[in-house]
């Protein structure tokens, strides 16, 4: 699924790294628990989360997650955007709940991790 399609489905806007908006993601993972994200071994992953802080970006960096969408209208801080930019992580913001966002992406063909 293209990142541009993710944005369209979730009414999300890219707030960092717009160059990647035509890149593909294969799987989605929804979690507010960074410890769980760190157990994943999946490439081309989209992380759907309401956990919006610096450690979310650090977790994405370590777990090689290149795309993160913040749900429930969570807003990334300047520090988060700076860190994500440094590590080439694409950040998006959506007004939808995690349940709704996950459901829409799943219905549109985004695969689960397991």
């Amino acid at each position, binding site marked *: 699924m293209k990142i541009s399609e993710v944005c369209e489905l979730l009414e999300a806007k890219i707030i960092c790294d717009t160059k990647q908006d035509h890149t593909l993601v294969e799987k989605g993972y929804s979690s507010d*628990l960074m410890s769980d994200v760190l157990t994943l071994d999946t490439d081309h992953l989209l992380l759907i989360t309401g956990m919006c802080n*610096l*450690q979310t970006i*650090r977790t994405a960096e*370590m777990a090689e997650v290149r795309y993160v969408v913040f749900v429930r209208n969570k807003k990334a801080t300047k520090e988060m955007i700076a860190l994500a930019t440094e590590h080439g992580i694409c950040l998006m913001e959506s007004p939808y709940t995690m349940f709704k966002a996950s459901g829409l992406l799943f219905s549109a063909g985004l695969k689960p991790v397991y």
Partner: protein
Amino acid sequence: MELNFSIEGGDFTQAGQASSRVKAVLKQLGVNTKCIKSIVIALYEAEVNVVAHAYKGWINIQIDKDKIRIVITDEGPGIPDIGKAMEEGFSTASKKVREMGFGAGMGLPNMKKNTDELNIETVVGESTTVTMVNYF
């Protein structure tokens, strides 16, 4: 090559800086991508553990041709029951730590999963030393 870092307990804005630096160094050295991911995830979990549980800590990293040896020592409460702490889901983390997305009792098991050798020495009320070795 040797790298050293210090960690302040409770300062979540700093957690991950050492892991980030190590990741960059290993990339420069041309280490296998999967191997780098395992190492930095284990180190990041260890950093978060020190920030979450200890007063302060130190990281010593030695990188050789065929392996990386990471030693994390802290001044902190120690681990009363290592066997229990290694169980998935067991955690003594505070509410603040949980609010950051950690403290689910996944840290130590995940460190074990991502290292070739993991050794934990702890003195309750004083300190914990975690040694992790990964072969390239």
